[in-house]
């Protein structure tokens, strides 16, 4: 326990100091925080509950649009803003920007949660691959439909309010870094707290055998919906932050980007190890480093590399990094291993 506290404190201090240690990588670090949030919340469904969703991107994109819309709509007419595109006809004062951002983030987190609660009863009754394909359809449908709505920019996209002129580029990077790092810490604390209660056991029971869990008197549907709402809350928050960070929202390429972000969150969680607390964090970090490398050195070939990476990870590495560590050092995970028994098992295989 003592070691854990030191570990967490070290990570917290490192996280707070990171933008000053690596001032050139602030945007990358902020994106990393968002990716960790997405992977960790995906893991609630995919890892703990056994419901492999491609649909968490729905909440992410929803949060992104909501945050930007609220931030603009609080002070200016939204339709004129999106119509003017990149032209700066309206300028937020610093106070307006930060107020708008704060309200926007709250809306971006709360509305997707409500949406998840409303559609959860219908969608979470599906199982296995039907659930996976249904959520995939949901994400793509949201992207296509939002691409046809005029008031949020339709096909030409939505420019989020530019950061006000206080402290220049440095301040912008730091502001968004600390915002996303704050979201990350909040997510991690919340998820860790959830995992330390009976809730995690129920989710695992649903994963292992839902019918039996129901027969044991667990209202599985209730817990599935709650789990999805938790995911939606943090996905929406992450989306809102990411929208401000990127500065430009497009329906299918940025917000409801099932082809990129929607797969990334699945991949990161699988790479790190499904159904573990630290797996998605490690997976997201490793993945982000790899991705940035690919994007820099194989520019143009990045999607080819991504496709190959997905296939390779899924086929050869489905247990992830944590799963591999667990196989290698089971004692570290608090498992008592009988050497002879283990050998016998390996030989049987």
């Amino acid at each position: 326990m003592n070691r854990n506290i030191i570990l967490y404190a070290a990570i917290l201090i490192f996280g707070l100091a990171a933008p000053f240690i690596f001032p050139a990588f602030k945007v990358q670090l902020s994106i990393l925080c968002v990716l960790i949030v997405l992977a960790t919340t995906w893991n609630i469904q995919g890892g703990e509950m056994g419901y492999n969703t491609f649909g968490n991107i729905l909440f992410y994109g929803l949060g992104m649009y909501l945050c930007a819309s609220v931030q603009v709509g609080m002070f200016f007419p939204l339709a004129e803003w999106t119509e003017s595109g990149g032209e700066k006809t309206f300028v937020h004062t610093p106070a307006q920007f930060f107020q708008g951002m704060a309200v926007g983030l709250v809306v971006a987190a709360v509305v997707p949660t409500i949406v998840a609660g409303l559609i959860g009863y219908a969608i979470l009754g599906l199982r296995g691959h039907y659930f996976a394909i249904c959520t995939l359809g949901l994400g793509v449908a949201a992207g296509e439909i939002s691409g046809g709505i005029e008031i949020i920019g339709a096909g030409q996209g939505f420019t989020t309010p530019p950061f006000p002129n206080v402290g220049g580029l440095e301040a912008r990077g730091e502001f968004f870094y600390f915002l996303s790092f704050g979201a990350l810490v909040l997510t991690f604390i919340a998820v860790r707290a959830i995992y330390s209660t009976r809730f995690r056991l129920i989710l695992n029971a649903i994963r292992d055998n839902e019918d039996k869990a129901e027969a044991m008197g667990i209202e599985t549907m209730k817990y599935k919906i709650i789990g999805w709402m938790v995911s939606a809350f943090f996905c929406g928050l992450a989306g809102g932050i990411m929208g401000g960070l990127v500065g430009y929202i497009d329906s299918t390429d940025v917000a409801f980007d099932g082809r990129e972000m929607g797969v990334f969150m699945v991949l990161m969680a699988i790479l790190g190890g499904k159904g573990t607390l630290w797996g998605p964090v490690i997976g997201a970090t490793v993945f982000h480093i790899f991705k940035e490398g690919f994007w820099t050195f194989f520019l143009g070939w990045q999607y080819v590399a991504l496709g190959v990476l997905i296939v390779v990870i899924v086929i050869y590495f489905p247990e992830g990094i944590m799963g591999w560590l667990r196989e290698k050092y089971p004692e570290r995970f608090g498992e008592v291993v009988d050497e002879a028994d283990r050998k016998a098992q390996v030989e049987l295989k």
Partner: protein
Amino acid sequence: MDFMVFQYPMITVQACLDGILLGILFALIAYGMALQWGVMNIINIAQGDLVILGGYIAYFMYLYGIHPAWGVIVSPIIMYFVGVGIYKLVINKVVDRDLFISILATFGISILFMQLMNFAFGADVVLANSGYGTTFLFDSAVVLPNSKIFSAFVSIVFAIGLVIYMKKSKLGRAIRATAQNARAAKILGVDTEKVYAATFGLNAALCGVAGALISITFTIHPYMGLPYTIRSFMIVIVAGLGNLPGVAMSGMGLGVFEEFADYILGTEFRIGSVFLLLVLILVYRRFKLSRKREYLK
């Protein structure tokens, strides 16, 4: 949003005919999807990308001066080997694993194909001009391009041919036996590995035919694959596995739905309405089954 459909009844006829001709094509793709789903228990997200690849083969024949209709013969032959290649490289490693693994693996293949096609053929929307002219019905109130009629006819020929092939030939019987019980088929001397490879190849060949027809009648674009996957998945779940008349009917139904969505909601919501329809169908089936305390599986 306009309601031309109700003011001009001929538009309804037009939309229905268009939709049926389109739906027959969808049914052909869905047939391939049902084949591999039934035999190998794999949902192939890359299905639509195979279709698009088949379309590009026909398009390239058109570019080099060969009539694109010959693509209907050439494209499935090439696509058969592409399909077998994909099977040998990737699918045979996921075939007996968790379904989600195969979904994700084929998703990876889909992204890979999308981007490779983007590099190889460019990001332009293209179509192969067949030069078949158009047919006018009802005093020119209904306009049907002959290429659409041709494509529907060819799809029906291929579908019937495949049904007969599956019934009569040795490989067809082996495929059906494997679909019923892979282990029993193995005991009785069926090389299931070969059967799987052939099934995947056949599916890719069907996609090749459909793609060649789509390149003649509609347009193709490297990123247009996923909607075809979703459409074929939807058709299969509505019809049920192994229900061929059902596949044809629901394919046509989907085609008609799409045409009406196009007219009523506008073209920008066309793909969105397809995906939304998928969600609605699944949710409907979920509620229908949950009354009997069952679930989709």
